[in-house]
């Protein structure tokens, strides 16, 4: 197996395409966690977004309608989680898990109810790549970077956008404060609940976008459990990225690279049992996470229900 495989431009192009849903969902979760709420139901929410996007696109023949519907569906679930967390002070991790289980079942059920039994699976047209004029013609890099779908471009644009929103706007400042020390925010007369609901809405929309990416860009269909653990990966990427957008992007690219590499390697490498190759991205993520974890600090008030009457 030649080392040239590592720098194959096709590999980089694959990395970008498959990192995109991860980074979009991770950015959504990042916003939610920065406000102090821990949402571990991402996987279920992405699935619901995926099926909603697929069904709506199929009915309306409009990818845009499907994407928006998918984003909305995920946002509803995220708001439900934050309702539990904020209005009821309830157990976030458990409710998140409950929503995960609900999302898995509901997505499968919705698909079944809409489409029933067929001998040919329903499908929609996926988004076509939009080459950026001029840039797409550059040798090597042109095809890798500038020949992607609009959603893929958006995924990478979102990283600096979210960074700016979190670190350069008043809203972002208040949001981060809510995650670190909600009492101080409350003392200023700003509503902690409103900020957390707001973060949930924005974050939920992004998680939904990440979920919708899968059918509308990659497969043109929906199948049960099609996220295959990407929601959990997004959760991990937030920690990996130390709750910062650009570092999370690095993690997403790394993971997608190893995954794409594994497929290429699988064609020529036959001595290693295939399951060990399939484990590679997860092992890799684990090892890298351990290496860079030292010093990673979560928002202080993460997963702590804010109780304004409580003392201290």
């Amino acid at each position, binding site marked *: 197996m030649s080392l040239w495989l590592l720098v194959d431009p096709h590999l980089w192009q694959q990395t970008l395409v498959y990192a995109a849903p991860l980074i979009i969902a991770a950015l959504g979760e990042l916003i939610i966690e920065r406000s102090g709420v821990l949402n571990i139901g991402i996987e279920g929410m992405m699935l619901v977004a995926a099926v909603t996007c697929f069904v709506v696109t199929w009915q309306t023949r409009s990818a845009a309608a499907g994407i928006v519907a998918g984003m909305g569906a995920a946002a509803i679930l995220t708001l439900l989680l934050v309702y539990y967390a904020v209005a009821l*002070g*309830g157990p*976030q*991790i458990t409710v998140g898990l*409950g929503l995960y289980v*609900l999302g*898995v079942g509901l997505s499968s059920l919705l698909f079944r109810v809409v489409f029933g039994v067929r001998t040919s699976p329903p499908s929609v047209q996926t988004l076509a790549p939009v080459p950026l004029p001029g840039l797409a013609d550059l040798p090597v890099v042109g095809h890798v970077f500038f020949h992607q779908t609009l959603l893929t471009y958006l995924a990478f644009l979102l990283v600096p956008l979210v960074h700016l929103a979190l670190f350069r706007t008043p809203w972002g400042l208040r949001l981060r404060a809510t995650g670190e020390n909600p009492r101080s925010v409350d003392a200023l007369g700003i509503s902690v609940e409103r900020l957390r609901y707001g973060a949930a809405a924005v974050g939920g929309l992004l998680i939904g976008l990440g979920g919708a990416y899968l059918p509308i860009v990659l497969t043109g269909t929906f199948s049960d459990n099609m996220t295959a653990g990407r929601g959990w990966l997004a959760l991990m990427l937030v920690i990996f990225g130390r709750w910062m957008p650009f570092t999370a992007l690095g993690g997403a690219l790394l993971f997608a690279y190893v995954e794409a590499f594994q497929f290429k390697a699988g064609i020529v490498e036959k001595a290693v049992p295939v399951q060990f190759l399939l484990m590679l991205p997860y092992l890799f993520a684990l090892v890298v996470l351990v290496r860079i*974890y030292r010093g990673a600090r979560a928002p202080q008030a993460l997963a702590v229900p804010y109780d304004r009457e409580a003392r201290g």
Partner: protein
Amino acid sequence: MSAESRPAVAEAVVVPVRSGGRSRVTTAVLTYVVAVALAAAVSALFILAMRGDVALAFRTILSSSLGSVAGIAQTLNKISPLLLGSMAVMLARQGGFFNIGVDGQMYAGAIVATGLAFAVGGALPLVLMLPLALLAGFAGGAALGAVPGALRARWGVNEIFVTVMLNFIAYYLTEWVATGPWNDPITGEAITRVLPESATLPMLLPAAGAHAGVLIALVMSAAVAVLLGRTLLGYEIRTVGDNPRAATLGGVRLGRITLVTLALSGALAGLAGAIEVVGYHNRLILGLTPGYGAMAILIAVLGRMHPIGVAVASALVAVLMVGADSLQRSVKLPASAGAVFQAIVVLCVLLVEARAARRARG
């Protein structure tokens, strides 16, 4: 999440009901009654929306899991992994940790038990092989649980993500052994050969198919309760879970407790995996755990992180799981409807509980 925020995170999962004494139990029971009623109402609406017969559905759920010896037997079988899994989660939680890796640890225990059985099962009598196999499962789960434990103890790495990643890794490892070296080719699936006879759990209700795993689960649960309530180790674990800084000041070695707690938690899950292999399937199959890990966490919370509560909740969820699946055949609902139904029930219970707790806090 840093160590300092852990006690607060504990609150995020276990909602304490701050009313004292006897009324606490009454409140809890009332909460459950209301919760179940709400869940039943929401589910009825849901079943109506799916054009099902609501009365038939509710009858089926109970009759299929409890209305016949066969049903009870299968419900008992299901209690074994659910109880052990939720005990694992509860034990970790008492130390302040989140074990989301029960599925992976079940597979790890199952793999080690299967391997040992294939290696020496032919040469040993049942009375030796069976305990060894169960012990192997215990050890396999402990080994996998020790990984997040060690990483947390040494470098403060959050165990949620380690355990989630290990779930995938253990799954692929199982896929390898079940399709490669131990595969039974005639099945054409990711299933191993049959285990030797000596590695077979005795049956509780042979005609109905219930194996003795539920007894083992109950005994181990009692052991965990004793460990937590009556031993020094249990005390240390609970202190760490309550307030790690105070515990350290009190002389508890945080790193050691972290490792031991998560390893023990994994061991319980690994034992559950071994029981599924030697009791239920007599083989190691991919799909040994159809999501028991997630249900275990939900059960642990429903049981308020208390051994008796967890045991009761396990039984109830087993009934629910068995019953919900039967909806397919009685009310002609698709399979996914059962999962949605279960999730609705759990979310309703959580909702009512959270509201009650909020009110109790005043």
